[in-house]
């Protein structure tokens, strides 16, 4: 079967740094962290990256009935991505798909429902439709008139990377011509934050400067900062994009997926190596072709070291030509939406040939011995190809590869 070329023609996001991709990317290049202190209803202080978001721009009050914050942000990001893509009228809805990743779905509605039940109050009749994990995809499909597949992937921290990979496969295979693909997560509610705190994977809030709490690859790293938001890409076949004179941002080169099949939470270099190699093979790329890696880089003690070991194993002597950063240091960990946000950042890195730093890493760990971008953004004038890695609890590893559209 002849596989079709897939390109990215639109970018949209609702993120801790804002909803304008250019502004967000500029803030990341400057190393500006959006992480801040957070506490609610007696929750122990946490460092999180929240979004200053109002649904009023996207929904009237009637449209907001039964729509959780996660779907609100998903719709906003999708509408922005469509606008960025110059989404035309008169598309054949059956040739459009929606592929969304989310770890939890409607966490606010779920927590409100539990709270009402616990207090002996009545539970809202719309709790189910607000909470269900595929609600964001459904809302996006309704707005876009997308009558093809509307899928939701819940693969923990790799959810939206899987969604983008699957969208690209469907387009490449000719099942559809266009897709809105990405992720949304909105779980900054007391019950969920407490659960993450109990797991002891979150960054200890920095007493002096909370914005510096998450320090990927740093000797003093202590975990990640929970984040929220949504990021969406418009993907389409190259021929479809060129025929409608769409603004092509980058080419989707390929994806690699693997499962550690080893442990629920402990990362495994061998599994990550398989995903990295699968992505290179899928994209027809050699390791030395890749100039930038937007790392999973969650700032856990074990995770960062394992990820760097996997990169060294695959890149070998070519590692010196690679540049690595973890932007989670600044936008937090968007969990199910992380892969999409970081894919968007990777596409913009390719476009601008400027890579954001791991701004908070000031004392790199020897165990993270890969060429890290530290301190300030790095200009990569010959950058042609880049990858974004997402490694999930449950052992699923996903690597997305993009190339410039020159």
């Amino acid at each position: 079967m002849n596989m079709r070329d897939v390109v990215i023609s639109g970018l949209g996001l609702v993120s801790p740094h804002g909803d304008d991709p250019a502004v967000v990317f500029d803030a990341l290049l400057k190393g500006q962290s959006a992480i801040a202190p957070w506490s609610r209803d007696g929750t122990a202080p946490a460092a999180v990256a929240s979004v200053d978001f109002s649904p009023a721009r996207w929904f009237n009050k009637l449209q907001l009935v039964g729509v959780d914050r996660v779907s609100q942000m998903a719709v906003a990001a999708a509408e922005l991505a469509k606008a960025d893509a110059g989404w035309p009228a008169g598309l054949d809805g059956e040739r459009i798909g929606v592929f969304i990743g989310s770890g939890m779905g409607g966490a606010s509605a779920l927590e409100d429902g539990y709270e009402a039940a616990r207090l002996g109050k009545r539970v809202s009749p719309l709790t189910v439709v607000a909470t269900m994990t595929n609600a964001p995809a459904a809302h996006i499909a309704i707005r876009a008139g997308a009558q093809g597949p509307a899928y939701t992937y819940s693969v923990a921290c790799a959810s939206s990377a899987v969604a983008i990979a699957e969208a690209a496969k469907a387009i490449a295979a000719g099942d559809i011509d266009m897709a809105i693909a990405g992720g949304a997560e909105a779980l900054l509610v007391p019950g969920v934050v407490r659960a993450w705190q109990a797991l002891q994977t979150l960054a200890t809030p920095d007493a002096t400067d909370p914005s510096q709490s998450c320090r990927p690859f740093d000797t003093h790293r202590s975990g990640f900062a929970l984040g929220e938001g949504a990021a969406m890409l418009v993907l389409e076949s190259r021929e479809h994009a060129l025929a409608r004179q769409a603004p092509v941002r980058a080419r989707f080169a390929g994806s690699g997926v693997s499962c550690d099949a080893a442990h629920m939470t402990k990362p495994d270099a061998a599994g990550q190596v398989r995903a990295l190699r699968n992505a290179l093979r899928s994209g027809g790329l050699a390791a030395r072709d890749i100039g930038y890696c937007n790392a999973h880089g969650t700032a856990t003690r074990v995770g960062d070291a394992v990820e760097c070991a996997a990169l060294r194993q695959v890149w070998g002597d070519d590692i010196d030509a690679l540049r690595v950063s973890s932007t989670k240091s600044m936008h937090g960990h968007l969990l199910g939406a992380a892969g999409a946000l970081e894919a968007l950042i990777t596409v913009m890195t390719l476009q601008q040939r400027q890579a954001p730093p791991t701004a908070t890493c000031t004392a790199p760990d020897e165990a993270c011995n890969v060429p890290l971008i530290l301190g300030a953004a790095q200009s990569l004038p010959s950058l042609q190809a880049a990858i974004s890695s997402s490694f999930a609890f449950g052992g699923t590893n996903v690597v997305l590869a993009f190339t410039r559209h020159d």
Partner: protein
Amino acid sequence: MTGCMNELLGLIQKAYDIDPASIDPHQPLADFGLDSLALAELMFNIEDHFGIDYPESRANVHTLAELAQVVDEVRGAISLK
């Protein structure tokens, strides 16, 4: 306009920003955007506001006038107790 109609219009305005003057009580609810989900939420709000149990057997209403009729009947039954 009698009974609970004004209060219902007030509830709808507060919840959904719909101008009461734009609502014809005999027009289908769907015509001013109240689909089945919004109606479920509205009935939930009505129960809270009026302190009543909306009868499930009367859930299939199509206009605001029908809805008000049911609410008035239930409230009448309560006040007669």
